[in-house]
């Protein structure tokens, strides 16, 4: 953004202006500013959830939209994600300690076997956390046994899989088939995503839901568990 932004004193802005400014700063990937804005809102007595939703998640939703429309590119999105992480760092401990903010459900997510692309998965994980999910991230190159083990251990409300390579996309189908064999699919909705996927592919492998981008995915996940925080 332009130079004049450097002169803006966040503390001097009223709440609405500050939230708008934080969304701008998040868009521009300004980590210290977003962190500072988060702290100011908290100091003004804002509920941590409201800070998260109104400033951070909403800011990131705008980033996601512009990424989808080709206005922003991967590095800018990553910068914004880092700015959001800055704010989340302050909010997370507060959210974890407050009783009203019990998790809306556990979401187990991983990039499938043979694939080590993880930017999209990490972004989805962050937005899900913002939506109130407890996110268990299995990382990259996750095979069916690791998914099964995590399902056993965490009893998730939703399982999410990510793939960015044409050669690894089919593995999502392998995992779903395995879940089906064990009769687990009826209780465990599976969400899939990744740039080369589309709805048709998701349908073909019998996935419950296809998530086109992080904001949409977190909306869909909330709808699946039927809870909004």
């Amino acid at each position: 953004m332009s130079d004049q932004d450097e002169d803006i004193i966040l503390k001097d802005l009223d709440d609405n202006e500050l939230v708008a400014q934080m969304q701008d700063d998040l868009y521009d990937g300004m980590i210290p500013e977003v962190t500072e804005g988060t702290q100011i809102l908290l100091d003004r007595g804002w509920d941590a959830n409201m800070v998260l939703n109104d400033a951070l998640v909403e800011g990131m939703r705008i980033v996601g939209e512009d990424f989808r429309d080709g206005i922003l590119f991967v590095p800018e999105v990553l910068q914004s994600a880092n700015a959001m992480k800055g704010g989340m760092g302050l909010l997370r401990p507060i959210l974890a300690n407050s009783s009203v903010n019990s998790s809306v459900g556990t979401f187990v997510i991983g990039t499938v076997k043979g694939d080590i692309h993880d930017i999209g998965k990490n972004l989805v994980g962050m937005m899900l956390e913002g939506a109130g999910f407890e996110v268990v991230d299995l990382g990259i190159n996750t095979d069916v046994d690791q998914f099964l083990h995590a399902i056993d251990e965490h009893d998730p409300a939703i399982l999410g899989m990510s793939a960015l390579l044409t050669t690894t996309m089919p593995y999502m189908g392998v995992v779903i088939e395995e879940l089906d064999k064990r009769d687990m699919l009826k209780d465990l909705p599976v969400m899939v995503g990744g740039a080369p996927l589309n709805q048709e592919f998701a349908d073909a492998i019998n996935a419950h839901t296809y998530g086109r981008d992080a904001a949409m995915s977190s909306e869909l996940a909330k709808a699946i568990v039927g809870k909004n925080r």
Partner: protein
Amino acid sequence: MSGRANISAQGNRLLVLACGAIAKELVQLKSMLGVEFDLQCLPAGYHNTPQNIVPDMKAILDARGDEYDRILIGYGDCGTGGGLDRLLETYPKATRLPGAHCYAFFAGLPEFDAMMQEELGSFFLTDYLALHFETLIWKGMGLDRYPDLLGMYFANYKRVVYLAQTDDAAITAKAKAAADKLGLDFERRDTGYGLLYDDLKTFIESAKGEPAHV
């Protein structure tokens, strides 16, 4: 390119419609094999925005397809999620190179899989990518503007494998420099033109058997 298509020695009109990242190799192969075909390329930058590949390819096929008897599509799936193959089903004259991407068709499919088995954290360079690493990868990933993002991109990687099409010390040095910049180990494998050579040859030869349309 305008006007009528060039006619091959066999009288067939052949078009190779390829990614800009393999243009130089195709020109090289054309003279190596002593064959005639028209070559049209889509921007190499589509590597980072594969959603552009299918619509652009369709536009070219619709505009120029009629001028040719056979068309070789110089692409892998390249992140179109099967979209390219679905498009090509409606253009029976066109055939695509095998494999998911150029690393696979330069290395050979089983060879590529073996390298991934050996080390999943492999990042591949070709001659083209080694030469254009700064523009396509470093700048393309925004590392010139945000060097701090390096870890977010490459933390899971261990080595750069340079799949060498040519034996060129200068390109090898560039590939090595790229590995150093990424903080990864470096390996060089001589692949030559791999399946690109084989398939281009097959493409030309199979067209020979067909009646010419002059």
